[in-house]
């Protein structure tokens, strides 16, 4: 059931008012997330191999599967507007949501590809026509007002509609930020850390539940657990 709550009346809100919760300690580290991943992994069921050069991120090897370089450039900025990297920590950009979306549109969500192609081009057209610059180069306020106009269905040239395309963008960006990292988003578990989700476990004790967000995040993908990988390398020892 959709519980989205689009445009509610403006009210004073305090982004600084955060719960005092040690479970969030990893959240504000930003670039330090590689280190946080190593901490979480040490207590997990499946030990992670320590990286030889601990402070250097692994090289990123990824092709765009269906979107063009220009489309992804626009999409990256839209994702960053929707779930920003800001003073509270990483967002959709660090999660690699646009990369996730490219993969999704190449496979399970191929039905949405045309809407993305048409929609991203229309956003770009709109920015160039009205502001005179590519979408990625205009100031954040203008980017946001274009997205707001999209959400409020005030623009033409989108499928199924401006608001419909906005919902697609939002849904895919959320998916790409908070999905299992197997799918190419939620990189380094930034999405799960953002909302203090302590991670995929195959069981949770009463004590785990009592700890709640204070439970140290384990930074495990579903597919770090042997039963769910295509092969366990040991002749099916985990067959239940």
């Amino acid at each position, binding site marked *: *059931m959709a519980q*989205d709550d689009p*445009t509610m009346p403006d009210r004073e*809100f305090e982004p600084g008012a955060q719960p005092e919760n040690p479970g969030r300690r990893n959240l504000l580290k930003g670039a330090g997330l590689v280190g946080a991943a190593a901490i979480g992994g040490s207590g997990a069921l499946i030990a992670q191999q320590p990286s030889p050069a601990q402070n250097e991120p692994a090289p990123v090897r990824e092709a765009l599967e269906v979107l063009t370089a220009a489309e992804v450039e626009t999409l990256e900025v839209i994702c960053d507007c929707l779930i*920003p990297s800001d003073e509270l920590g990483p967002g959709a950009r660090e999660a690699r949501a646009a990369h996730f979306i490219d993969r999704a549109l190449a496979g399970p969500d191929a039905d949405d590809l045309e809407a993305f192609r048409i929609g991203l081009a229309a956003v770009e057209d709109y920015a160039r026509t009205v502001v005179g610059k590519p979408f990625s180069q205009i100031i954040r306020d203008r980017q946001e007002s274009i997205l*707001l106009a999209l959400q409020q269905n005030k623009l033409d040239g989108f499928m199924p509609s401006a608001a419909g395309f906005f919902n697609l963008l939002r849904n895919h960006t959320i998916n790409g*930020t908070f999905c299992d990292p197997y799918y190419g988003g939620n990189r380094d578990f930034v999405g799960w850390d*953002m*909302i203090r989700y302590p991670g995929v476990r195959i069981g949770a004790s009463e004590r785990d539940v009592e700890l709640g967000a204070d439970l140290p995040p384990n930074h495990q993908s579903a597919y770090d657990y042997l039963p769910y990988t295509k092969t366990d390398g040991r002749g099916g020892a985990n067959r239940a």
Partner: protein
Amino acid sequence: MPRRLEGADVVIVGLGAAGGVASLPLARAGLKVIGLEAGGWLGPRDFGPDELRNNYRNWPQAVQKCAGEAPTVRATASDRAVQGGHPMMNAVGGTSMHYWAQSWRLNPWDFEVASATRRRYGAGRIPAGSTVEDWPFGYEELEPFYDLVEHTVGVSGQAGNVLGDIDRRGNIFEGERRRPYPMQPLRASPFTELMGAAARGLDWNPFQGPAAITTEAYDGRPPCQYHGFCSRGGCHVRSKSSTAFTAIPKAQETGNLEVVPYARVTRVVAGGDGRVTGVEYVKGNEHFYQPAQVVLLAGYTYENVRLLLLSESSAFPNGLANNSGQVGRHYLSHHQGAPVTALFDRDLHNWYGLPAQGVAIDEWADDNFDHGALDFIGGANLWVHTDRRPMSAVRMNTFGQTSRNWGSQWKAFIMKNADRSNSSYIQKTTLPYEDNYLDLDPEVKDPFGQPVIRITARYHENELRIAQFAQDKMEQWYREAGATHVTRSGLGNAMGASTHAYGGTRMGDDRETNVVDRWGFCHEVSNLGIVGASVMGTSGARNPTLTSQALSWRTADYLANNWSQVAE
């Protein structure tokens, strides 16, 4: 021509929650049973803890037979019907593989809604246009079969009424049961403790509802691990008591059940004498005819009705067992919508929960309270539970606290509140009406070119009034528990395709208004039985699966005990 196979005693069409249960007493009685199932076998390794795959990409049901024949939906006969998704899945075990596993008995009132209402409030209180009838028997008749299913399949829970002894830890309104559940209920959590205490503060009687989920080692299966991927995810340790892990393997152990996966039944074949002789099915590129002395339809409500309507013959020109015109009538989908959602000022600790771990309130269900001054009959079961996962959590209601549902302000909100909201699950008495029905869609076809089912149905005033009443109670409960914000959803209109779809082949003694008799066999076709919620004439205010399983066991038991009378 389809290839003719060797005959069976009984062919069961669909090995889900109901068909799986039916296979066991039949196989144990020594009957040769063939179970035709449109899906395949799945096991615990297929149920990874992956929210995107399970809950958003709908694996595995996205690639299912039922997905190609989803019903079309319209509120009234003057609307255009639109095809949506199908809420169920095909597999050995059917939707019992991945369902919430809440395993309620109906309350005694649900079996006698019409007469009890007339008796207590007068005939004028039965809503206009409703075709509700009493069941052909009362709760007591079904009680032994509820008990059999609870113990054979494995249901955990806290009894509230064992042989008349009322236990306030359980549902004090439940019908009398012969013995307690075979297992303790699912454990409490910080959230269930919070809501339970609030309910007691209101002088209500909170209790943990029953679940077809093990809470201790049971019948060779381990207990629930509370990992949080139960809903639509299937169980990674077989603690969810799907028929695929319980009744079906037990039936196979007898050597009398042959399971045929990936078999899509396209037609039930009737002879000129009005009896059925078997079914036709497609498997891959091959067409088969499976003769049987008795056919049991055990598909979901939409498929049971559809198969009857598609099986025209000279004896049944309007569809099998439909010379009375009753197939597709008395349809209802349970009013489970119109939730109330709350925001709290603290974490609720619900990351590792499940829909069946929760707190129930039955004070406002059925006829458990006086309706004298009210303008409806029936009521609602209030349920709050602990199910939460990241992708759905961040799609939370923002309770007017952010100007947009994106951007920095929204991000700050979900960072703080992802584990602080809760949405209730409110199941309401839903009645059948003259103008709510299933028939074949005149335009939309499945991949074989056969029409899909069309739902024409909407909630009537009685359901909407219950919804309003229940929302008041639910808000009161959340406020008592300290919720800082509460919102209500709309009350509902069209009855969409639902996981709680009832009727269409209603059970009753009157052959003018019902398709099957009190034993589940068609009035017009004595060797054609039907199991599943399509035989239920009322919904009660709780999940249908256990009742449909108890009815299924009862029908199979009757068949085994009266074989020559039914089959020959």
